[in-house]
C-alpha cells in the first residue's frame, strides 16, 4: 500500500477496508478457528497424561488407528495408479468421448457418501447380487475391511486424477516426444521425464486424497457394521465414543484427525508457495 490512496481508484477508503477485514476475520474466527481450537482444548481438558492414556491404553481405539492406517494407504495407492493412468490418457491424447470421460471422473463427488456405501452393500451384502456366492466361498466384504477399502476408494476416486490432468496439460508433451524420438522406452519415459515434471502435482493430489480417505465417515459407516475393534476406523470410533458419552476420549481421537487436517493444510500451503516461487523465477529469467 505504498501508493497514495487518492491516486489509486482501485483502493477502498480506510474505514471500508477496516470494516471488511474485521468482518472477514470474524467469519473465519467463528466458523473455523474457534471449532479448531475447541477440538484441542476439549481433548486436553484433563491434561496431557490423560490424553495420552485415552489414545494408547484403549485397545479398541488402537485397533481403529491401525485400521485407518491400513485402509487409507490402500485406497490412496489404487487411486494414485488410476490417477496417473487417466491423466496420461486424457492429457496426452485426443479421442471421442474425452470430455464425457473427464466429467465422469468427478461423478463420485456428487454422490452422497451414504449412497456410496449403500451401492456396495447392494452388490456384496448378504442380500446383494453377489451375496450368496460370497457366502458360499466364505468371503466377507461388507462388514469387513475389504468393504471399507472399496467405499473409501469410491469416495476418494477423483482426487489424484483431477489434480494431475490440468498439470500434465499445462506442461505439454514436447519433452516426452523428444525423449521418445531419442529412443527412450516407455518405462524410462515415465520415470525420467513425466514423473519429475508432475511430482508436485502428484504430491498435492496424494495429500488431499489421503486426508479424505482417513477422514471418510458416511460411506464407511454404511459398510462397516460397527464391529468394535474390527471394523471401526478412526472417524467411526469418534462417533462410537461420543454415543457412549465418552466425550473426552471422542475428542482425543478427533484431535488426531484434526492434526492430520492441519498437516495436510501445511503441506498444501508449502506446495502452493513453492509453485508460485517457481512461476516467479521462470518469469524473471524469461524477462532477462
Amino acid at each position, binding site marked *: 500500500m505504498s501508493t497514495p490512496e487518492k491516486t489509486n*481508484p*482501485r483502493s477502498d477508503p480506510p474505514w471500508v*477496508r477496516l470494516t*471488511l477485514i474485521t*468482518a*472477514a476475520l470474524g467469519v473465519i474466527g467463528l466458523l473455523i*478457528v*474457534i*471449532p*479448531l481450537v*475447541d*477440538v484441542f482444548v*476439549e481433548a486436553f481438558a484433563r491434561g496431557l497424561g490423560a490424553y495420552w492414556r485415552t489414545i494408547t491404553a484403549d485397545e479398541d481405539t488402537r485397533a481403529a488407528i491401525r485400521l485407518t492406517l491400513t485402509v487409507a494407504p490402500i485406497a490412496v495407492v489404487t487411486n494414485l495408479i*488410476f490417477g496417473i*493412468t*487417466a491423466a*496420461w*490418457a486424457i492429457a*496426452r*491424447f485426443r*479421442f471421442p468421448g474425452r470430455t464425457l470421460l473427464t466429467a465422469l*471422473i468427478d*461423478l*463420485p463427488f*456428487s*454422490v*452422497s*457418501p*451414504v*449412497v456410496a456405501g*449403500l*451401492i456396495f*452393500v*447392494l*452388490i456384496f451384502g448378504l*442380500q446383494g447380487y453377489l451375496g450368496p456366492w460370497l457366502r458360499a466361498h466364505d468371503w466377507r466384504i461388507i462388514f469387513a475391511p475389504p468393504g471399507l477399502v472399496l467405499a473409501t476408494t*469410491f469416495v476418494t476416486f477423483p482426487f489424484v486424477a483431477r489434480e494431475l490432468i490440468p498439470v500434465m496439460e499445462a506442461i505439454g*508433451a514436447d519433452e516426452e516426444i523428444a525423449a*521418445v524420438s531419442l529412443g527412450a522406452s*516407455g518405462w524410462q519415459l515415465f520415470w525420467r521425464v513425466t514423473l519429475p515434471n508432475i511430482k508436485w502435482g502428484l504430491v498435492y493430489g496424494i495429500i488431499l486424497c489421503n*486426508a479424505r480417505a*482417513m*477422514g*471418510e*465417515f458416511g460411506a464407511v*459407516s454404511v459398510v462397516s457394521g460397527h464391529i468394535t475393534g474390527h471394523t471401526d476406523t*478412526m*472417524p467411526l470410533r*469418534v*462417533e462410537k465414543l*461420543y454415543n457412549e458419552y465418552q*466425550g473426552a476420549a471422542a475428542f482425543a481421537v*478427533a484431535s488426531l*484427525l*484434526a492434526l*492430520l*487436517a492441519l498437516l495436510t*493444510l501445511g503441506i*498444501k*500451503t508449502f506446495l502452493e508457495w513453492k509453485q508460485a516461487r517457481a512461476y516467479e523465477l521462470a518469469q524473471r529469467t524469461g524477462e532477462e
Partner: protein
Amino acid sequence: MNDVNRRVLPGFGLSLGYTLAYLGLLIMVPLAACFLKAATLPFDRFWAAVSTERAVAAYELTVGASLVSAAINVVLGVLVAWVLVRYEFPLKRVVDSLVDLPFALPTAVAGLVYSSLYVESGWLGRFLVPLGIQAAYSRLAIVLVLVFVGFPFVVRTLEPVLERVDADIEEAAACLGASRLQTVTRVIFPSLYPALVTGFALSFARALGEYGSVVFVSGNMPFKTEIAPVLIVARLEEFAYAEATAIAVVLLVISFAVLVVVNLLERWSKRVYA
C-alpha cells in the same frame, strides 16, 4: 499435434483401457446396481417408499437446508474472497490456508465439535442460549454445520476471477465519475456472476449429500431434523434395503440434476458474460 502424440507416445490403448475398466468397475457398475435394484421394485412399492411423509419431510429439509447454507456461503464467500484478494493485513497467509480447513477436516470431527459448541455449556452456546437461540440439535445446527462444510467452495471459485478483474475497467469507471460503490456493484460484481453461480452450486451439491457432520449435530428426529442420508441409514438399520435404495435413487437423481444444471449454467454464463 494430436495425431503425432498418438503415433509417437506409448501407452494410449493401455492407459485408456485401464481408465475405462477401473471407472466402470468401481463407479459405473455399482451405481447401475443401485438403479437396477430400485427398478426391481414394483412401481407402487417404489412410490410408497419414496413418498412417505417422513421421506418427503427429509427431502424438504435436505434441499432447504442446503439452499440456505449455500446462499449464506455466497455472502460470506464474497466478503472473504474480496478481503483476501484486495487487502493486505497481518497473518493473511495463515487466514488464506485456514479457508481450506473444511476440505481437510474429517466431517465427523466437524460434527463432534459443532455439536459441543452450541449446547448451553459450549463456547458459543453460553452466549447464544441466554439470548434464546437454541442452536444445538435443531435445524439451525444443520445449516451452521453445512455452512462450515461448504465454505471453501465460493471463496476458492471467486478468488481467481477477482484477481483477473481488469484494473483498466475499474479505473475507467472511476474516471467517468462512478462512485466507488457504483464501480463495485455495477462494474466488478457482474463479472463475478458466473463464478458465484458455480460456487453456489458446488456448495449446494456438497451440502445435499453431507452426512458425517450433520448426524452429530442434528439430533436426527424424524419429521424435524432428519435429513435424507440419515433416513437412508435408518432404513438400512431396519434391513429395509429396497426402501433405502428407493430413497437413495431420489437423492442421486437430485444430485445429478444439480450437476447438469450447473454445467448448463456455466456454459450459458460463459456465453453471456464472456
